[in-house]
C-alpha cells in the first residue's frame, strides 16, 4: 500500500516540476499556459490520490479538492488565454527571430 502511495506522490511532484520547467522553457505565453496547466493538473491529481491511499478516511475532502482542481484549473487558464488573445498578444512563430 505504502509503495503505491509513494510512487503516486513522487509522480505527482515530478509532473508539477515538469510543468514549472515548461513554464520556464516555452517561448510564448500560450505555450507556457499549455505546459503549466496540463502537467500541474495531473500532478496535483496524482498527489491527491497518493494522499488518499495513505489516509483512506480523508477521501471525501480529497475528492472535493480534486474535482475543484480538475474543473477550475483549465477554466482559469482558458480565461487568461482568452484575455491575452483579446488584448492582442501575438502567438510565437518559429520563422521569426525566436525570442
Amino acid at each position, binding site marked *: 500500500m505504502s509503495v503505491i502511495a509513494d510512487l503516486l506522490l513522487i509522480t505527482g511532484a515530478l*509532473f508539477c516540476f*515538469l*510543468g514549472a*520547467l*515548461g513554464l520556464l*522553457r*516555452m*517561448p*510564448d505565453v*500560450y*505555450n507556457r*499556459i*499549455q*505546459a503549466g*496547466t*496540463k*502537467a500541474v*493538473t*495531473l500532478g496535483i*491529481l496524482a498527489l491527491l490520490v497518493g494522499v488518499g491511499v495513505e489516509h483512506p478516511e480523508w477521501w*471525501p*475532502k480529497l*475528492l*472535493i479538492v480534486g474535482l475543484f482542481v480538475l*474543473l477550475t484549473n*483549465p*477554466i482559469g*487558464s*482558458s480565461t487568461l*488565454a*482568452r484575455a491575452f*488573445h*483579446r488584448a492582442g498578444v501575438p*502567438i*510565437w*512563430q*518559429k520563422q521569426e527571430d525566436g525570442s
Partner: protein
Amino acid sequence: MTRQIQHVTLTFVLAFVFWLLLVGSVTGQEVVAGLLVAAAVAALNADRPPVLAGLRLSPMAPVAFVLYLVTLLRALLRANLDVARRVLTPSLPIRPAMVRVKTSLRSDLGRLVLANSITLTPGTLSVDVDDDAVVVHWIDCAPGTDLEAATRAIAADFERHLRGFLT
C-alpha cells in the same frame, strides 16, 4: 416554469451532496444543517440564469458521463507525457498555430465542458468561444495539415460522449 423548478432542484441536490462531502459524515445534525443550507443556496440562486439547463437527464446519461470521464483521463495522461516529452527535448519541438474547432453543442454548459476538455487534451488550449466554434491554440501544427479534418479530430471524441448527457 418547469425549467426553473428543474434548475432549483438540481442546485439543491448538488449543494447538498457538496455539503456531505465537505463535512465527511452523515449524522443527524449535519444532515439537517446541510438540508437548510442547500435550500437557502437553491432559493438565493433561483433567479440566476440556469447554468445547469444544458444537462440532459436520461437513463443513458450516467453511462455517457462515465465514458466521458474515462476518455478525459486517458487524454490527460497522454497530454502529460506529450508535454513532458516536449519540455525535456532540448530543441523544443513546437509549431504553434490558432485554429477554429466547430462544435454542435448548443448550451453554455456543453461548450464550457467541451472547451475545458480540449484544454486538457494533448497539445491544445481553448482560447475563446465564438458562436459555433472554439478557438484553439495548437502547439504542434505541421505545415500543410488538412485543417478541417484535424480540427474535427480534436473535438470529435469528446463530443460523442458529451452529447449523451449535454445539449
